[in-house]
């Protein structure tokens, strides 16, 4: 439960901010929320990572579902994933998760100082 609230908070703010800010805004957002919520470093990383892994992964999944995998199938050929589009959700989630995870970790570490 301790993890759930920060995850929701980060994901929600990022979901809104992404409509007008560049993709990397997820890092400062995760940073600030981790700082404000006084998260422990480990928790901070986990919250940032999971929030964006889920947000980006789910968003990609939702788009792909209503697209019948037409585009993801082609992108998974372009990036030599042998057409395995499921891996694309993973890559998408990992990129968002890592950036936000380290952002949140940094915020949590700053608070601890």
């Amino acid at each position, binding site marked *: 439960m301790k993890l759930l609230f920060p995850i929701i908070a980060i994901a929600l703010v990022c979901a809104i901010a992404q409509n007008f800010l560049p993709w990397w805004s997820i890092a400062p957002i995760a940073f600030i929320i981790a700082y404000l919520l006084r998260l422990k470093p480990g928790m901070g990383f986990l919250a940032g990572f999971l929030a964006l892994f889920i947000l980006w992964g789910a968003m990609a999944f939702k788009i792909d579902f209503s*697209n019948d995998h037409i585009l993801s199938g082609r992108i998974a050929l372009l990036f030599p994933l042998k057409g395995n589009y499921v891996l694309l959700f993973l890559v998408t989630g990992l990129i968002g998760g890592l950036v936000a995870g380290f952002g949140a970790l940094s915020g949590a570490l700053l608070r601890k100082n």
Partner: protein
Amino acid sequence: MRIFAFFVSSAVTIGLIVALNNPLGPAPAPGKFFDPYNGFWQNAENTSHFQNINLNLDGLKDKVEVYFDDRLVPHVYAKNDEDLFFMQGYITAKNRLWQMEIQTHNAAGRVSEVAGEKALPTDRMQRRIGLGFGAENSKAFIEKDAQSNDLIRAYCAGVNAYIKTLKPKDYPIEYKLLGYAPEEWTPIKVALLLKNMANMLSVYEFDIENTNFVAKYGIDQFHQLYPERDSFTDYIIPQGTKWDFAGDTTIPQGQTLASLYNNAIEKPRELNGSNNWAVSGSKTKSGKPLLCNDPHLKLNLPSIWYEMHLVSPSMNVYGATLPGAPCVISGFNDSIAWGVTNGGRDVRDWFTVKFKDDSHNEYLLDSQWVKTERRIEHIKIKGGKEFLDTVMYTRFGPIVFDKSFGDVKSKQYLSMKWTAHQGSNEFKTFYLLNRGKNYDNYTDALTNYSCPSQNFVFAARNGDIAIKEQGTLPFTKSFVTDGSKSENDWNKMIPNANNPHIKNPGRGFVSSANQFPADHTYPYPVSHVGIYENSRAMRINRLLEDTNKMDVAYMQRMQRDNYNLIASLTLPTLLRVIDRSKLTNDEKEVITALDKWDYNDNADSKTTVLYESWYDELNDLLWDEMSDPSIPMKKPNAYTTAYFIKEDSTSIFYDNQQTGERETRDMIVLESFDKAMYKLKQQYGSLANIKDWGTHKATVVHHMSPALDAFSRMNVYCGGNRGIINATSHDHGPSWRMIVDFGEMKGYCLYPGGESGNPGSKFYDDMIDKWAKGEYYVAKFEPKEQLEKEKLFKITATK
């Protein structure tokens, strides 16, 4: 300790962002690209949910309604012509923006800007042949015609209105992958597109290759291997037709310079083909004319064509449009229909130029030194410095090849004069055809068409049929010519009105399939480039003569006809001369299969694979003299090849240049067979295991960018091949198939692609399967009340 951890973690965060925000070699920046809110995921379109859209667009005069049908074909209903073309631009851009722009970048020699240095040689070539120069001349020429100018500007305004709505997340996926942004659409781009088409269709021209051949083998061999007319053909204008003008049959002499040239423009493979024909009511079931057109081009995604229905109070036209340019190019309205094939005339000449000194400021003309014009080409290169290329212009066009381009040791300066360098307004031809009502409107429209020559077939609801070859046709030469004499210039042209044409011939049909336009009674020289085809023309005419009860189904069977007339001319000789005693048992079975073959290149035929493989090897071995890239020469055409094999068994050309001994025809026939069978065994394990023709040929519709082959459609199973009515080869074929039936006033059409240029749309390649099977869609050439009921969704735009 914590503060240290904080700095490390922050550094990792920033490092990650920087790394993911920049391109990884050729791959796009992963952060931007995978971000589901702005990256590629945004290009994945919903496949089942479509919404009506209301737009307010600056520049519109009145309300425009656009109905998208179940194939996403737009039906544009406007209240005036400016709005109609504005909306044509808007809707085309919405579906094909990247393609439009990359095609004009390609024409203008600007691909290096987006693809980097690897595109520099092609960019330089486009500039050196003067494509941009020609487009600028056309733009200035069109501006003199107020109406054309206004309508082209309306079209551009529509494209730009769409571009203005775009945020980076909305860009077509190719922009995201290659990391650039669309720019403003301008009238010069429309001109560039038309010149690009002219270049694609007039690139076949062999002055340099011919000169090389004559220098090596002499003029007598030249006339034998490249005869002016093939020994048999069906002309476009039926033989015996009387001409009502006197003409001028002076053959342009020009001096043949016995010299070898190391550079020539690389030509795509020949026998590409396009067909069109029209049948008068006397030969149809309905008593009304039928018209067919299938222009053949390289198969590409997004497709070269975009199907549209354009309606205003002054016109109601349906057909294939060229994305980036207004009007319908091949189509029909409720009164007339028309279609095009390439005329194959020679509209380029090459000249040697002598400069006074290394400054290249003056060149020799009629014993005087004439000032050179210069055009400095600025080529921007992605990730590199701008490249400057100075192209010198003479009376005989731009210097294409000199030591700075092509062979660095070359002391020759070769210029190219080309009708596409002249300003012309092809747009007006299509504008007038789109609203045409009758034969007179059709001939009026055609007078504006300049380059390259095209065979315009015509049919009208009132019963008229006609065909005319139209283009600016100077008396050109077949060899590199001395550019220091003005007498070698194009001093004569065929008057427009005297281009080969015929209306309502007695035989009840007109047709063209890239063959010789008229018999020897035509009172002008026909300077052509030697790629005329007879096989499709003859097959089409036989099928059109066959019955007087033609209908749409018969037309469809014709367009998908796979009869290989070239094989029927060539194979019997091969089977006669091959020494069967030297064959293994499985090879004998191959010969037995070929003995029984019906000459149809059907998708499910295995025998076709045997013949086509053999023929390819034979052609390569036979004409190996012409395959040295350092001395470009043209291979003789398929008819000469067939005739040659049949009639001449001892020619020097049978000799294989790679071997010490002197080969004969019978040796070459056997050797090519062995080679073909060896390769097939390598590929399939054994001759018993070979796959059928459709699988073996594996037709592919390539995405326009070679770097994005994942967006291509591979292994399209279909029959046909070069020289066949259905001339679908590995990557070339019918780029648009259209049948217009004036009996029911219906159009049947499709093309190997889809209406959307977006690889993330289900409409990206949805017509390919039906196209491969030779099936058709009925065009929804319908009033808007009907479209309102059948539409997928609708765009309503107001000012």
